[in-house]
Structures are given as structure tokens and as C-alpha cells.
């Protein structure tokens, strides 16, 4: 029952996204232009720490921009309709899955643009990609929940940013640590950090699953 609802809701999100492509195009262009601006200001970056930090900061802002709209674009009538048709858990899980897919596309594009302009210094690409995908999942689940909160409180972008920044720091720090390992190409994978990342993702998704039903009704 739940999985069926989730499936339909994800299809709905996809259809809506494809119907007005400018939103998707806008966010992809946002990533590319941010990387280009960084390229013009930095030229080539060879210091791993700087490369890494800049990459994740660009991705963080792009993700916030991409996900901020996930509840804002829903009109009141449409939300009401959705709530009569589906359970709150289905709504939040479908949004999380859809946003993770979006962020995976976004982060892959970000990596490509970054490689093209600023240069690629990653020595352990598989680990970096795993980090990137897990990071997309974590970002999307946390930011989807925060965007649901922000959408109830006047919907402004500033609120979204100040609500999400302090609570996204744990995730971001683990991600930066893991991707730094990937860049340095350390021989042994640090399974501890991967486990922590997995645990963080699980906690965020579980909290969203439990708490969303208190948010959705007005």
C-alpha cells in the first residue's frame, strides 16, 4: 500500500518536473555557473583541502536551492488533494527519494563541471562516488524535512538556510572527511566513517518518517 503510493507520488513529481523544465534547467545552470565563477576566481586548485571544501560548499548551496522548492511549489489545493489521497509517510518518503535522484544528477554534474574547469585531483574515484551518492541521500532527506518546516513558516529562503545549516554540519563534516580520504587515495577505506554516514542517513530518514505527520496538516 505504502510502496504503491510512493511509486505514484514519485511519478507525479517526475511528471511535474518535466512539465516545467525551466526549474530543473535553472538549478543545473546554477551549479555550472557557480563552478565557472569559482574557476575564474581560483583558476586551478591543487590543494586537496581547498578543492574539497569548495566542492562541498558549492554542492551544499546548490542542494539547498534545489530542494527549497520541493514544498514551496505545491499549492495549497494540491497539498490538500495529496493529503486526502496518500499517507503522510508516503508523501515524505516519495519526496526524499525524488530529491535524492535529483541531487545525484546535480552532484554528478557538479563533479563533471568541476573536473572540466578546476581540475580533478581525486585518486580514489569509487570511494568519492560512494561518498557523493550517500551525501546526496543525506542532504536530500535532511533538506526535504527542513523545507517542509520552512514552507509552513512563510516560505522564505533565508529561513531554509538558517534552519538547515546548523543541523547539516555533522553530515557535511563526515562527508568532507570521507571525500578527503578519497582525494588523498588512502589505501585502506575507513569503514568507520562510511558506517557513521550510513547511520546519520538512517537517523535523518527515520526522524522525517516519524515527524512529518505532525507537520503536514494545517
Amino acid at each position, binding site marked *: 500500500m505504502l510502496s504503491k503510493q510512493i511509486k505514484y507520488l514519485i511519478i507525479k513529481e517526475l511528471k511535474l518536473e518535466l512539465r516545467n523544465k525551466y526549474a530543473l534547467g535553472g538549478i543545473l545552470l546554477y551549479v555550472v555557473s557557480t563552478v565557472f565563477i569559482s574557476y575564474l576566481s581560483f583558476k586551478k586548485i591543487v590543494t586537496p583541502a581547498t578543492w574539497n571544501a569548495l566542492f562541498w560548499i558549492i554542492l551544499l548551496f546548490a542542494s539547498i536551492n534545489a530542494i527549497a522548492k520541493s514544498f514551496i511549489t505545491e499549492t495549497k489545493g494540491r497539498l490538500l488533494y495529496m493529503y486526502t489521497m496518500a499517507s503522510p509517510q508516503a508523501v515524505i518518503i516519495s519526496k526524499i527519494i525524488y530529491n535524492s535522484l535529483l541531487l545525484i544528477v546535480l552532484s554528478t554534474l557538479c563533479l563533471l563541471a568541476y573536473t572540466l574547469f578546476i581540475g580533478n585531483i581525486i585518486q580514489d574515484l569509487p570511494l568519492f562516488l560512494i561518498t557523493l551518492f550517500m551525501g546526496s541521500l543525506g542532504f536530500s532527506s535532511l533538506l526535504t*524535512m527542513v523545507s517542509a*518546516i520552512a514552507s*509552513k*513558516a*512563510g516560505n*522564505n529562503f533565508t*529561513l531554509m538556510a*538558517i*534552519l538547515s*545549516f*546548523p*543541523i547539516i*554540519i*555533522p553530515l557535511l*563534516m*563526515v562527508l568532507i*572527511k570521507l571525500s578527503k580520504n578519497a582525494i588523498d587515495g588512502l589505501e585502506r577505506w575507513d569503514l*568507520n566513517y562510511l558506517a*557513521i554516514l550510513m*547511520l*546519520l542517513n538512517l*537517523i*535523518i530518514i527515520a*526522524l522525517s518518517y516519524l*515527524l512529518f505527520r*505532525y*507537520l503536514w496538516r*494545517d
Partner: protein
Amino acid sequence: MKKNWWKIIAIAFVLYTIIAGFIVPVPAQPILHETIRNLYFHVPMWFSMMTILFVSLWHSIKYLNKSNIQSDIIATQAANVGMLVGALGLVTGSVWAKYTWGAWWVADTKLNGAAITMLIYLAYFVLRGSIDEEQKRARIAAVYNIFAYVLLIVFLMILPRMSDSLHPGNGGNPGFNNYDLDSNMRMVFYPAVIGWILLTVWIFTLRVRIEKLKRKKLFND
């Protein structure tokens, strides 16, 4: 009087902390010297903050269950008082850091954790400020409070793994309990912790009462 015995304990213990904290001899440690007395003031602030923020979390959960506006008042005021003791903890810690590490602020796991705690609860108040409707504000703030508190606790648990720290009790540095704290200091430190926590709770109960009276007046006018 029977109900207020803990307030008397609070006054007695805090007074004892202030007097004994400056008089009772302390072990002569290198670098720390007399600043070790700050232990009686700085550390209990964080204990009080975590206690009172837990009260805030508890009442946020209670609000989501029962939708009783009283729980919301308690949760807010607890977070308020938590910010107050948190700020005092930052100030006392900053002064201590200046005299022992040589800087007001250093990039350190414990300090980052404290800063993030403050940011989360400031965001919580901004969120509250941006919603007008009372029930809705209470509900959404409660959701954010729970979400943020759980992530904060996880963060405070994983943070020490991320890097070494100057702060006692982290990254190979011994906590005070191991050998710095002699029996003299224990005699002051434990009452200090209890005293400051009780004082914080007292401030919190006063704030809750003031808030309730304000609302009563609002309804009567």
C-alpha cells in the same frame, strides 16, 4: 516552604561554590595554575544547559502528543534559559581559553559543538518568530526542536572522533576526573554542579510562571 526546599539548596550550594571555590586550595597544575577554579563555574554551565535543553525536548515531544499549549510554553522557556546558560558557558570558557591556550577562541571540537548548539537554538527562535498562529507555531517549532536535538546529540557523539582536541576529556587529553581533581576540588565541584543546575531550573520555573501570567493578563484585558 515544604515545596521550596530545593531553592534553599540551590542558594546554599551556589553560595558555597562561590566562597569555597575561591578559598579552598587547589592542586598546582602547570599552565592551569589558579584558573582551575573556573572548573566550578564553566563545567556546570554545560551540565545545566544539557539538562534544561532535555527538558525542552521532552516538552516538545509532549506537545506533539497532547497539543497542550502549556507544554509549548515550557519548551520555549527551557530553550531560552538553555541559551542563557550556554552563553555563560561560552563566556567562562572563552576567558579560560585565553589564559590557558592563549586565544579567546580556538578551532576545537568541543567549542564547535557549543557554537552549533547555540546556532540551532537561535534558528529555533527565528522559526518561532516567523509563524504567527499560536498552535501552528507550537507544532512546527516542536518538530524542529526534536529534529535538531537528535542530530545535535549524534553530532556531539561523533565529533570527538573527527579530530584531536585541546579540551580536557577529548583526543587523548585526560579529563579532570583522572588525576587533576583531588578530593578538595571534588568537595566543591559536585555541589557546584547540583547548585547551578538547581538555580537554572529555578530561573526556568520563574520564566514559565511569568509567561503564563502574561497570557492570563492577555485573556483578561
